[in-house]
C-alpha cells in the first residue's frame, strides 16, 4: 500500500491530518501527529488535604474505637464480678436520661406540638426496647451454652470488627443497619458468657448467667452503640467546641478504663488510637503527592446539566 509510519520524515503531503475516520486520508488509520495526548490531564480535581483537618476527621474513627473499648471494659468488670449488674443497670438508666435531656436541650427548637409528639414516640420506643429485651433475656441467656468459649470470643471479635468497618462515620445519626446489628450480635454473644449470679443459679450449671446480667449488657449495648452516636452528632452540629472536648474525654476514659483491668490492653489501645489519629493522616498527606491520575476525552461522559428543564 505504500503508506507507512515513516511518513513524518519524508515530505509531508499537502493535506493536513485531521482526526476523523470517515474521510479517506493519505495517512494510515493509526497515525497520530504531534498533537498526541494534548488533551491529557493529570490529577484533575485533586484535593489538597490539610493535616489538622484530617486529624479532626480521623478523630471520629478513634472515638468509635474507644466506644468499643469502653463497652468491653464494662463487660470485663461484670465478668470479674467487680460491678454488680443492678448498679450498672441503674447507672445506665441514669446516663440514658441525662443523655436524653442533653439531646433535647441541644436540639433545634421546634414548636411544642411536634416536641410532644416526638417525646411520646420516644417513650414508646423506649418501652418497646425494654420490654422486649427483658422478655428475651432468659432465652438469650442460654443461647450459646453449647458453643465453646473460643468460638464465642472469635465471633464477637469478628462482629465488632464488622461494626467498626461498616460504621457510617460521615452521618452516624441514623445508625447503619449492618454496624448496629453486628454490635448487638456481639453483645448478645458476650452477654451469654457472663458468669452467673450464684444465688439465683444454684441448681443449674454455674456458667450460665442470670437474666439480669444479660439485660444489663443489652441495655448498655444499646446505649453505647445506638444512642450515643446520635447524641454525638447533635453535639457536633450544635456545639463544635464541646465536641472536641468530648472526643478527648472519650479517648482518655477508654484507655483509662481498660488500663484499670488490663494494662497491656490499655497500652495497645493507646497505640492504636495514636496511630489512627496522628499517623494515618500523615501517611495520607505524604502519599498524596504520589498520586497520578490521568483524565482525558476517553472518560465516561458525565451529565452535568440540570435536566429538569425537560420536565416542563
Amino acid at each position: 500500500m505504500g503508506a507507512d509510519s515513516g511518513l513524518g520524515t519524508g515530505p509531508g503531503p499537502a493535506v493536513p491530518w485531521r482526526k476523523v475516520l470517515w474521510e479517506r486520508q493519505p495517512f494510515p488509520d493509526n497515525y497520530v501527529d504531534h498533537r498526541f495526548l494534548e488533551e491529557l490531564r493529570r490529577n484533575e480535581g485533586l484535593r489538597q488535604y490539610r493535616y489538622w483537618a484530617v486529624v479532626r476527621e480521623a478523630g471520629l474513627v478513634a472515638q468509635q474505637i474507644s466506644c468499643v473499648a469502653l463497652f468491653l471494659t464494662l463487660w470485663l468488670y461484670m465478668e470479674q464480678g467487680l460491678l454488680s449488674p443492678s448498679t450498672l443497670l441503674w447507672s445506665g438508666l441514669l446516663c440514658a436520661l441525662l443523655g436524653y435531656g442533653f439531646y433535647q436541650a441541644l436540639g433545634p427548637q421546634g414548636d411544642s406540638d411536634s416536641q410532644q409528639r416526638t417525646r411520646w414516640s420516644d417513650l414508646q420506643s423506649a418501652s418497646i426496647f425494654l420490654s422486649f429485651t427483658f422478655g428475651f433475656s432468659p432465652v438469650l441467656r442460654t443461647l450459646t451454652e453449647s458453643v465453646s468459649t473460643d468460638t464465642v470470643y472469635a465471633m464477637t471479635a469478628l462482629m465488632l470488627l464488622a461494626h467498626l468497618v461498616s460504621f457510617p462515620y460521615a452521618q452516624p445519626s441514623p445508625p447503619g443497619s449492618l454496624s448496629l446489628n453486628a454490635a448487638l450480635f456481639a453483645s448478645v454473644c458476650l452477654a451469654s458468657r457472663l458468669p452467673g449470679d450464684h444465688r439465683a443459679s444454684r441448681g443449674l450449671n454455674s456458667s450460665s448467667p442470670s437474666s439480669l446480667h444479660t439485660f444489663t449488657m443489652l441495655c448498655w449495648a444499646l446505649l453505647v452503640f445506638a444512642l450515643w452516636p446520635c447524641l454525638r452528632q447533635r453535639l457536633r452540629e450544635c456545639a463544635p467546641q464541646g465536641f472536641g472536648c468530648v472526643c478527648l474525654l472519650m479517648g482518655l476514659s477508654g484507655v483509662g478504663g481498660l488500663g484499670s483491668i488490663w494494662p497491656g490492653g490499655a497500652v495497645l489501645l493507646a497505640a492504636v488510637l495514636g496511630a489512627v489519629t496522628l499517623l494515618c493522616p500523615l501517611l495520607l498527606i505524604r502519599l498524596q503527592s504520589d498520586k497520578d491520575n490521568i483524565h482525558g476525552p476517553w472518560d465516561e461522559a458525565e451529565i452535568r446539566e440540570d435536566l429538569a428543564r425537560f420536565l416542563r
Partner: protein
Amino acid sequence: MVLKIFFPQCCNKADSGLLVGHWLPGQDSAVVLAVIHYPFIPGQVKQYIHQVGCVGVGWKNEEAGGEGKTKEEKTGEEGDKVIFVHYEQRKVMLSQLHPTDPPVPLTQSTSELRQVFGTVSQSESLFFLDKYDDSPVKLTHWQSEGREGSIIVELMKQASTPVCLLTAWILVVCSLSVSVSRILNVFPLRFISSKLCSCVQLSYRTEHLQTVSSPTRATSHTDYMRKANIFMSFLLDVTLGLLLIYWLYRENRVGQLANALLPAADRVAKELEELLQWLMGAPAGLKMNRALDQVLGRFFLYHIHLWISYIHLMSPFIEMILWYVGLSACLGLTFALSLLSDIIALLTFHIYCFYVYGARLYCLKVYGLTSLWRLFRGRKWNVLRQRVDSCSYDMDQLFIGTLLFTILLFLLPTTALYYLVFTLLRMVVVMVQGVLQLTVDFINSFPLFALGLRVFRSYTLAEGVKFSVLCEEPGTPLHLMMDINPLKFSSVVQTYRTATYSCYPKDSWLALCKKLFLGELIYPWRHKTTKID
C-alpha cells in the same frame, strides 16, 4: 419402471381363471386377492367384482406343482420389469401393522406396505364365499377350503352381549348409590376417598369394567386390544386375589397376623421413644440447646403415648377387621395391596404428624432467618419488583430484628436435627408405600393379552416384513417371499400398556433436595388422573 405384484400363496396351485385384486395407484403395485375360476358368466362376475370394489385382470396358469410360472398379460405395461411378491394371505389378513396411528382410509401418502396390508384387511367381504357355497362365482382364496371358526368363540360371542348388559347395569346401580351417598356429605368423603389408595383403585377398576362391558363392538384395533388387555388383567387380578385368600385363610393365618400386629406397633413406638431420648441427650456429640431440646422431645413423647393408648384401645377389634379386610381380596390382588398400603398409612400416621410438625417448624425458622438476614444487612425484599432492595429501618425494627436473628440462628441446629430425623422416617414409610403402589400399577397396566398374542400368534402384531428370494433367474420375473416381522416384546409392552394413574416421582432429584433443604412438605409420589387414550 418396476411393477410389483403381491400374490397370495394359496392361489399358486389354483386353476386358471380371472385375477381379482386392487391396483395401488402411485406405487406401481397390484395386490391380488382371489382367483375366479372358469367357467363364469362375465356379467355376473362384473357385478360381483363391482360389489366388492375390486379390479379384474385376466390370467392363465400353467397347472403344475410348485410355483406357477405365470405370464402376466396386463395390458399397457409390457416390457417392464415385474416382481412377484408372494404373501400368505391368512397372516396378512389377520395382522396389524404397527404403529397403528395413521388413519384408516388409505391415501396416497401412506406407505406402500401399509396400503397392501390395509387392502387385504379391508377386503373381508370378498372372502366370505368358500367352495362349499352355492353361488355363481367360484373363488379361491385363503378361506376357500372352509370358513374359519370355532364353536367356543361363537358361543362366547353369543353369550357376551347379555353378560355385558348385565354388568353395565350393575355398575350403573353401584355408581348411582355411591353418588347418592356422596351428595350427603360432600367435602370430607371426597377428600378422604381421594387420599385412600383403595378407593382410587376401586374407582379405577369400575371405569375399566365399564369400558369392557360396553355393548358396542370395538371399532379399531387399539380399542379391541385395550378391551382385551383390561379383561385379561382383571381376570389375572381376581385369580391372584383368590389365591391369596386361600393362602390366608387356610391355617388361620389371619389370626396369627392380628396377634403379631399389636406387638409390632408397640415395638415401633418403643423404638421411637428411644430415638427421642437419644435426641434429647447429646446425639452424635452435637451440642443442642437444652431448653428447646427438652420442649420438643417431651412434646413428641406425649404424642407417642397417645398413639399407643389408641392402639391398645383398638386391639380387641383388630382380628375381626383383618378377617373382613382379607375377604375383600376377592375383588383382586390389586385391591388387597392398596388396602395394605392404606393400613400402613394409618398405622404410621403419627410419623406423618411428627414430620409435618418438624417440617413446619424448620420451614418457619428458615424463612425467618432469611428475612432477618436481609434486615441484618439493611436490605428488604421488594415484592413488587421481586428483588432485594436496600431499606432504611427504624431503630426498633433493627433492634428487635437483631435479637430475633441471634435467637433463631443459635436454635437452628436443634430444629434442623429433629427435622432431619423425622424426615428420614417419613421417607422410609413413603418408600414402602411407593413400592406397593408400583406393584399395583404394574398389575394394572401389564398387557397380558398382547403378550400372549405375541407369543402364540406372532404374526398378528407386525412391525414390518422381510423378503426372501424364491427364484431369481434371468429372463423370468423375480419371485420374492414376504414374511411378517413380529413386533419386539418391548414395543408390545410399550404400545399396549393400559394408561393408569401411574405414580411416578413428581420432582427431579434437584428439586427434591431443594424442597428438603427449605423445609417444604413433600409428597414425592404423584398420581396421574386416568386418561382415556
